């Protein structure tokens, strides 16, 4: 076995053992950390590896959650269908929004995406008879095999691990390499015969799908959904997670989201001004640590690789 697998496997073992030692609340927080990590990693596929200004990623998270919650509460379809419906709906929405936005670049892309996303948010926020409006949908009937907090945790751990593996393979695949080429030099990529738009669109759909997976996991863990999940400020928070961990590394967003979710949980207990703390942390990161925690660590502790890259 290669050495580079040791750390992830040890981490996985620790995560698998965690619910045996931790009280219920901490198991819940750990599950939130995992699914938020998946959300941030899926965003990073678009923004870190694709260079696409995906400003409103939380919409796919929200649609994934609402898709799952609506199928589970309003239809008699079997539960696995519901769990898949969210991610598929998110991917479909991502395709539609992508087709509209993909020809724009940078800031214009981001703003059109925000306005399309806000359209979805406003609809969900106001459609009381279908989505529950600003109350959301509390008490989603989660199927028995993932109803207990422990089994929900293990389900989240399994799905997150598989999704992260899939994303890791995608980033390392020829498709992933082409995507990074497009990020670094779109004009040249176009000139050597790469279909830039098709690649970007594919990346968007994949990112949307896994964002939706994170959303459907949230339903399993929290058994509720609410429209704030897809408000634009949350999208920016997920962006901060990517930035904090390191945008040009694969595991950076996971690290960033773990830091933020844990900080938010424990800081909010003691002081009511979480946003103030977040703002200060973010300012410090942007000014002093623009490549993020993992990016900094990679440069600091592996100077040779850093020089090559």
């Amino acid at each position, binding site marked *: 076995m290669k050495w580079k697998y040791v750390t992830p496997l040890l981490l996985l073992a620790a995560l698998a053992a965690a619910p045996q030692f931790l009280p219920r609340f901490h198991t819940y927080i750990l599950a939130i950390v995992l699914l938020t990590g998946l959300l941030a990693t899926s965003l990073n596929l678009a*923004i870190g590896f694709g260079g696409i*200004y995906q400003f409103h990623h939380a919409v796919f998270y929200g649609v994934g959650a609402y898709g799952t919650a609506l199928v589970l509460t309003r239809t008699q379809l079997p539960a696995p269908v519901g769990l898949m419906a969210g991610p598929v709906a998110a991917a479909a929405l991502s395709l539609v929004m992508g087709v*509209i936005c993909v*020809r*724009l670049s*940078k*800031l*214009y892309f981001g*703003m*059109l995406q*925000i*306005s*399309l996303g*806000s*359209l979805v948010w*406003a*609809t969900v*926020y*106001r*459609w*009381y008879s279908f989505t529950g409006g600003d109350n959301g949908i509390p008490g989603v009937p989660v199927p028995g095999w993932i109803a207990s907090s422990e089994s929900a945790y293990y389900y989240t751990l399994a799905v997150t691990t598989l999704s992260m593996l899939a994303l890791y393979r995608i980033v390392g695949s020829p498709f992933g390499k082409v995507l990074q080429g497009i990020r670094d030099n779109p004009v040249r990529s176009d000139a050597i015969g790469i279909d830039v738009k098709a690649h970007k669109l594919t990346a968007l759909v994949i990112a949307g799908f896994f964002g939706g997976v994170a959303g459907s996991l949230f339903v399993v863990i929290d058994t509720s959904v609410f429209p704030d999940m897809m408000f*634009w*400020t949350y999208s*920016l928070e997920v*962006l*901060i997670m990517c*930035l904090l961990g390191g945008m040009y590394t694969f595991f950076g967003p996971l690290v960033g989201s773990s830091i933020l979710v844990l900080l938010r949980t424990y800081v909010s207990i003691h002081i009511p*001004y979480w*946003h*103030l703390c*977040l*703002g*200060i942390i*973010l*300012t410090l990161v*942007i*000014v002093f640590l*623009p490549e993020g925690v993992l990016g900094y660590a990679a440069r600091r502790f592996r100077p040779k690789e850093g020089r090559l890259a």
Partner: protein
Amino acid sequence: MGLSRTTILFIVSSGLSLILGVLRIPNIAHGSLYMIGAFSAYSVISFLGGGGFAFWAAMVVAPLIVAAIGFVMERGFFSYLYEREHLMLLLLTFSFALIIGDLVKILWGTEYRSITAPGFMQGSAEVFGLPIPYYNLFLLLVGPVIAVFLWLVVNRTKIGKISRAAAVDAEMVSAVGINVGWVFAFTFVLGCFLAGLGGALIAPMTSISLGMDHSLIMEAFLIVIMGGLGNIWGALLGSLIFGLAQSLGILAWPQFGIVFPYLAVVVVLTFRPKGLLRSAW
């Protein structure tokens, strides 16, 4: 009602447009500055004990406070970071928005505040058989004045011309011996002043509350993008379309009224991806 809110939207988004067009900073903290403007206006008026003089004082002092905060932000942070990507600048301004949001909560508390327009602006006039409050008429007067003033500053003064040149090529402008840093600072402070003015002007019309920044900043951004970055008339046109879509939408379908402005933006950007009017970029 619709038109006077449009005026506020125009004042705030023209400031945002100026900053975005010249400095290329997508300033999310702009909405927070607007909120500070509203709260400062409240404080000035309650400090001076109401009346006409307090009102006018608030309309001048509140934007100046906001402009001073903008000056600190620009000189303290942005002036070192112009070379960074847009994404970094966007997130930096978002962090300021978060910090300001909580500072306002600490300074002014979480209760709703309200101020009333001075006596001579209360009451309403009959226009086409509809009662329109004097204050709204006043706002309708202020909007065009600001638009013309901004146009004069940007197109007819030296600093306006320099700032337009700097928007196109800052390096070249500094190469001919102009201190671009101070031109940028001036533009940023002017933009912030407009945000504060917008906040102070809307104060007598609505309740002043935390969270008024979130809804406004998104609208202002969409207006700027719709109108064309850095274009004053674009901001005006964008605000008109946005405000119109909002009020017509609420009339036509009350439940989904808030959807229509976003729909308008989507339609405009689908057919004119770079905005309605020529942008500075």
